[in-house]
């Protein structure tokens, strides 16, 4: 599940309350059946968290020493801890750097080590605050694959993010927060289809050549049109009807055609009224 929202919407505050870093002033939050205030220790054992950024690790200690220390904090001991640390370092592709100080690690490597630290005690719930913030595209993709793999292993993953693609790729449900409360909760597809009713569908037409652009001004339900040398993007109320019309009227000039509802980013911008 992803939590999306503008800066100040309450994403990080929510995560901090769930991870025992902040006391809620009202209401209750429960992780794996444990109240995060009254049963803080049990709730802490039930979740692993990584609160973003490349800090939160000891730069003078090695990756393995960092994991050993944080593992002890969660009640892990001896050989079980060593085995688990080695297993996770392997999982996050840091085995060959296990004995090097964290100060020599790149931001992406530190983020992966954070993830390993959060998973040390095998928590059923994983809470991540902007796990790929500040990473280059390769590192971000690698981080997304890792998070996906942990979700596939059966961990419940809650993540906050500004990256709509990340939210869409990793989440079965998305929570949109605004002004400290939940604005909408749905699957990414539900959100996009819901937004399509208001903002229409995008039909992207690729023409045979950049000079053979067809005239789409009579397309039924047309809301907006943009031309870009051989590609036309139409915003229409009904994607199916528009496609039928395009194929019937201009089909000979069109080798490729696609229809998509608004992106999650458009949904988000519409909700936060930044457009």
């Amino acid at each position, binding site marked *: 599940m992803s939590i999306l929202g503008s800066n100040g919407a309450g994403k990080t505050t929510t995560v*901090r309350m769930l991870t025992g870093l*902040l*006391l809620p002033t009202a209401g209750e939050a429960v992780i794996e059946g444990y109240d995060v205030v009254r049963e803080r220790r049990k709730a802490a054992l039930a979740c692993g968290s990584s*609160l973003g950024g490349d800090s*939160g690790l*000891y730069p003078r200690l090695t990756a393995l020493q960092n994991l050993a*220390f944080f593992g002890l*904090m*969660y009640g892990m001991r001896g050989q079980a801890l060593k085995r688990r640390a080695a297993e996770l370092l392997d999982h996050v592709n840091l085995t060959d750097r296990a004995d090097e100080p964290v100060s020599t690690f790149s931001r992406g490597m530190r983020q992966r080590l954070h993830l390993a*630290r959060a998973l040390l005690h095998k928590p059923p719930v994983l809470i991540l605050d902007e796990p790929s913030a500040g990473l280059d595209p390769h590192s971000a993709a690698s981080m997304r694959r890792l998070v996906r793999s942990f979700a596939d292993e059966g961990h419940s993953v809650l993540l906050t993010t500004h990256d709509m693609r990340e939210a869409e790729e990793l989440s079965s449900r998305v929570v949109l927060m605004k002004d400290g409360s939940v604005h909408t909760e749905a699957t990414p597809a539900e959100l996009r289809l819901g937004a399509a009713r208001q903002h229409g569908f995008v039909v992207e037409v690729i023409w045979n050549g950049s000079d053979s652009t067809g005239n789409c001004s009579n397309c039924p339900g047309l809301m907006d049109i943009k031309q870009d040398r051989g590609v036309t993007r139409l915003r229409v109320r009904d994607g199916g009807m528009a496609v039928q019309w395009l194929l019937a009227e201009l089909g000979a000039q069109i080798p490729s055609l696609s229809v998509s509802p608004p992106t999650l980013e458009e949904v988000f911008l519409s909700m936060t009224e930044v457009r």
Partner: protein
Amino acid sequence: MFPTACRAAIDQIRTQAVSPMSLLAALAMPAVFAFILYSHTATHTDAATAVGIAGIGMLNAVIVDLLVSLSGEKRWKTLYPALSSPGGLIPLVVGRLVGVAVQSLISLPGTLLMLTLIWGMSPNFDWSRWFLGGLCLAVATTALVGLLSYSLLRFPSSPGMTNGLTGVLIALSTLLVPSTALPPFMQPIAWLVPQSHVMAWVHGGAVAELATALSQSTLIYLVILLSVRRVEHAARARAIPLEA
């Protein structure tokens, strides 16, 4: 909690024990005091002088090492994962204090070596009072300076608060001069400081002095634990930042 605290202590020693700042704090300042002291007395080194001079090194080292250690925790934002862990901040702080105490012990042999090489050793040097007194002094000094943990964790500008503390504590802990040399109004305060009782024992006092020093230290450690709990509560209830 115990394994976490042990590991925190080991990591503290592993990462800071041989740092130049730590070694200078433990050995350079007592050397300066030793030169001043011997310029007036010019005698061989006895156990009381050796422990007193080592005590100055310990005091300075514990202040510097604790400051570096907890400031580092805030700079690296490692207090947040500790706060969200089942044990909270206490195992971490206890471990750091133990590590800092062990680090400060370098002053004991370090300053004795220096004193002996320069001024020679008294033929009646009391090794047991030197060794046991030195150990108890490390425990007492860490307890007293450990009270700083609260302000170091709680307040963003806390490192500046340690300025001047060394001088006040050197005077009150009777490391160089007996309590009778202090101004009358300061003498009762000096007996509230556990180092004063350790030094009284090293000067030939009864074992009860050591027991008093250790009892006072235990009490101070309990106050430290309670103050760290207060920091935890303040961090959770009022979102005070645990980072620099």
